[in-house]
């Protein structure tokens, strides 16, 4: 039963007062001793049948009479001004129903300082015009008829070039996104001067592309002044807010629906232009419009993981105690700041290790390429590659086991806020479990046959994943004893439907098949935040449990009257309510609900606050074994052992899937994935042929050494997030294993054959 408390926090400085809202649920957390029967079991996905039969409805699958197909004309130049645009011929083409461009679209603000269709274009792929037509072919024909005269402007590609004093400005005000974000505790410079052992190296990470199999896009339709959008999004409520705001509509007249989506990985966590463009085209045409990006547009204009350059300095005593961490980070923001989670590359330097002297300085840099957006553990993946590589270098410099070095230095508290973690031993557990399962042995010698050399490496991570308020859910019991759960969150493919259904079924004492969960619809669901930050299960799970608990309480009160017993004496399991100690006095849940129908039992639940005075965190460690062919530079990842502390595991199959999938993306990030931009600002591999993602034969044997331990201080379910973190340590663990195998340190991702061969050649001056 949520109880809403609103506190006024008076600013006192003339700025607007803030309000702090706390909703307490009064639920006792499920801890390690709670006997659970539905939560914790590896149920198959509740939507499995929809997906294997092809029935699952994605953003581009909506059937609507009169549906038009939209396409977007994109800038061929990395920086240009539109001198003249003529769409008359496109508009005259039979079958074309609407055309939008700088000259004809409403002046809708986009990015901090631009327009939806702006005269200034800042990357190859920037939106120039859009058409809606009877067919994809006609839409494509129409785009060819749009005549645009561009005035090319000086442009810059790549971090280093953009930082040069003479670099052409991507936008007025220069190429720095803002002043550097600086963090400091203690005195890292002094500690580095005094440290007997210092590592000082520079690492780079590449621009990586999400390449969700389903591109961004939506279907839009108007019914009078009401707009419905089926969008491939990680946040139906954020899309609703943005679209309503830009179109000047009240929020209740915009309905955003997302039944299923073909991956997001962070790239779909914001409202993108396509949603507004489709809505405008649909309104102009008076017909529904489908606007799905093609693969090229997806890889040009729908986000990427920012490239970074990181200078890392570590100071340590001879016994391997870290005394200083310093990082200076530059990252390639692309042409625009698109919002959403920032890529906070600095964070892992501040948190992963116990260290009194830490300085980080992070600066974003504009370039004339597609904008960066969150990509699965944004910032942490980039930062961990550098930090965890540097830790391996430190271990080598100290002649110390990399595992022992980490065990000596890992953090048990959030040093940024001076709060202990709810699971201070979380990372230790992961180290120990991963090392034991892997058979980590410091004294083991690199092995190999012929040109092949084997080596082992490890890396670790932390991450948030606590979840946070607000987030809501409702539970209703039908007359037949079935239950429906309604929430406004979304299942972005991770298994949210299944995990939340298990939580509800557990609390309601019903078998899983008697519970159905509805989500992904702003018109029917109650507010839930963006599915990002590995927060969904830990945010909405407790809200679902709270709603179910309220329904359960009412159900038991009704049953108590019927059974002539006290509610406290009733037990509810697998759909049956029994009087304790009197097994013959029992009712099915349906017996209760039928007798009171059509009166209805309903529960409303909210996400309670996170604990005061403590920090909730997730952790992990991975050990990998690789084989390097010194003749070809090929790196094969032979096996990975991954151990992650994410609190209670609600569904082992779903959690294993997150680990396997994330490690696979980590292999891609480490070895093959890289957006390549030529000197003219053109992306050379904006497709799935030349942008290499891992295929089935590329995937190593992955063992998930589970740490399934509830974190009852975190929230009422004891579960924390796992979606992003297992990607974080994979790349540095691979790089460290490559060093172990062949003795060369690759400080740049991806560890391509070209890089390996060049490094091996430099390492081995004399020919064999």
């Amino acid at each position, binding site marked *: 039963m949520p109880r809403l408390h609103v506190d006024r926090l008076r600013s006192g400085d003339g700025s607007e007062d803030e309000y702090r809202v706390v909703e307490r649920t009064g639920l006792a957390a499920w801890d390690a001793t709670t006997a659970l029967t539905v939560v914790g079991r590896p149920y198959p996905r509740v939507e499995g049948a929809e997906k294997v039969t*092809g029935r699952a409805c994605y953003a581009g699958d909506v059937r609507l009479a009169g549906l038009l197909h939209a396409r977007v004309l994109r800038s061929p130049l990395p920086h240009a001004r539109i001198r003249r645009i003529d769409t008359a011929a496109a508009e005259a083409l039979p079958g074309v129903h609407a055309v939008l461009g700088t000259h004809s679209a409403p002046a809708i603000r986009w990015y901090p300082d631009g327009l939806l269709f702006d005269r200034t274009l800042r990357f190859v792929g920037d939106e120039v015009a859009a058409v809606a037509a009877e067919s994809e072919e006609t839409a494509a024909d129409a785009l060819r008829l749009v005549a645009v005269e561009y005035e090319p402007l000086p442009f810059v590609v790549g971090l280093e070039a953009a930082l040069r004093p003479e670099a052409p400005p991507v936008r007025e005000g220069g190429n720095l996104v803002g002043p550097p974000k600086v963090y400091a505790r203690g005195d890292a410079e002094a500690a580095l001067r005094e440290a007997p052992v210092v590592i000082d190296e520079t690492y780079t990470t590449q621009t990586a592309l999400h390449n969700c199999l389903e591109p961004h896009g939506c279907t839009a339709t108007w019914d009078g002044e009401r707009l419905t959008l089926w969008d491939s999004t990680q946040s139906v409520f954020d899309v609703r807010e943005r679209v309503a705001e830009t179109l000047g509509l009240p929020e209740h007249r915009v309905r955003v629906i997302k039944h299923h989506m073909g991956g997001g990985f962070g790239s779909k966590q914001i409202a993108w232009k396509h949603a507004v463009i489709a809505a405008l085209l649909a309104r102009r045409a008076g017909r529904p419009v489908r606007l799905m990006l093609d693969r090229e547009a997806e890889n040009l204009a729908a986000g990427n993981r920012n490239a970074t350059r990181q200078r890392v300095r570590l100071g340590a005593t001879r016994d391997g105690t870290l005394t200083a961490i310093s990082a200076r980070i530059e990252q390639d923001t692309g042409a625009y700041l698109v919002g959403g989670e920032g890529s906070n590359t600095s964070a892992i330097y501040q948190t992963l290790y116990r260290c009194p002297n830490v300085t980080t300085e992070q600066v974003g840099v504009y370039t004339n390429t597609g904008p960066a957006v969150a990509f699965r553990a944004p910032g942490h993946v980039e930062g961990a590659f550098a930090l965890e590589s540097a830790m391996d270098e430190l271990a080598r410099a100290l002649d110390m086991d990399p595992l022992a070095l980490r065990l000596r230095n890992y953090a048990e508290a959030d040093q940024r806020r001076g709060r202990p973690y709810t699971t201070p031993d979380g990372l230790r557990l992961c180290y120990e479990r991963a090392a034991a399962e892997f058979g980590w042995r410091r004294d083991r010698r690199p092995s190999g046959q012929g040109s092949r050399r084997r080596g082992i490496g490890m890396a670790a991570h932390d991450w948030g994943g606590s979840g946070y308020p607000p987030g809501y859910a409702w539970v209703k019991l039908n007359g037949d004893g079935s239950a429906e759960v309604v929430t406004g969150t979304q299942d972005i493919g991770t298994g949210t439907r299944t995990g939340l259904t298990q939580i509800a079924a557990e609390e309601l004492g019903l078998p899983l098949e008697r519970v159905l969960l509805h989500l992904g619809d702003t018109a029917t669901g109650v507010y839930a935040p963006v599915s990002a930050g590995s927060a969904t299960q830990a945010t909405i799970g407790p809200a679902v449990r709270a709603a179910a608990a309220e329904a359960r309480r009412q159900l038991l009160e009704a049953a108590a009257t019927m059974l002539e017993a006290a509610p406290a004496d009733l037990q509810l399991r697998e759909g049956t309510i029994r009087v304790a100690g009197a097994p013959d006095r029992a009712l099915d849940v349906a017996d209760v609900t039928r007798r009171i129908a059509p009166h209805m039992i309903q529960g409303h639940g909210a996400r309670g606050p996170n604990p005061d005075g403590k920090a909730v965190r997730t952790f992990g460690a991975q050990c990998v074994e690789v084989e390097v062919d010194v003749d070809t530079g090929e790196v094969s990842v032979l096996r990975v052992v991954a151990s992650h502390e994410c609190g209670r595991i609600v569904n082992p199959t779903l959690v294993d899937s997150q680990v396997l999938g994330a490690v696979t993306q980590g292999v891609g990030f480490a070895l093959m994935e890289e957006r390549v931009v030529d000197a003219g600002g053109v992306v050379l591999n904006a497709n799935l042929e030349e942008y290499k993602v891992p295929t089935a034969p590329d995937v190593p044997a992955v063992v998930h050494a589970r740490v399934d331990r509830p974190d009852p201080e975190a929230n009422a379910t004891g579960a924390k997030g796992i979606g992003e973190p297992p990607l974080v340590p994979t790349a540095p663990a691979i790089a460290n294993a490559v060093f172990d195998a062949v003795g060369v340190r690759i400080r740049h991702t991806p560890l391509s054959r070209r890089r390996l061969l060049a490094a091996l050649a430099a390492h081995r001056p004399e020919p064999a």
Partner: protein
Amino acid sequence: MNVIPIRSSSEIRLTVNGRPVTLEVRPEALLLDVLRDRLQLKGARRSCDMQVCGACTVLVDGAPVSACTYLAVEADGREVLTVEGLADGDRLDPLQEAFIEHGAVQCGFCTAGMLLTAKALLAEEPSPSPARVAEYLRGNLCRCTGYRKILDAILACAAPGGGTR
């Protein structure tokens, strides 16, 4: 520049999921668009547009093809099987069952293509080795699962004898 190509349509007759279909299609019409927009069979997904990701895979006369680059006119006189035709009424194909059971489905966007590719493989080779299954799936990308559970699901449907490697 401003030339609109003149296009004529032609009639094609094909069998889709066991049912005869007759359609007028433009010569450049892709099988994927015809399936999705004309026949409302949405199970084949558009993703890479260049026959490398496998999300649009359907079987034409039993062989896996990428419907995103396969002209509809090429299907004239042929039998097309889409994911919607895999189940026998309400009875799922064993591969479909295995995909659900093994957790081989995540976001689901690659699933139809994976299932049909697996169907073709097992028809060709009833007892493939694990390495052979992985190799055969090279043209089907999955960004979510890491493939392992997909391989497990397919191997669970293979006849015994494929070995363990």
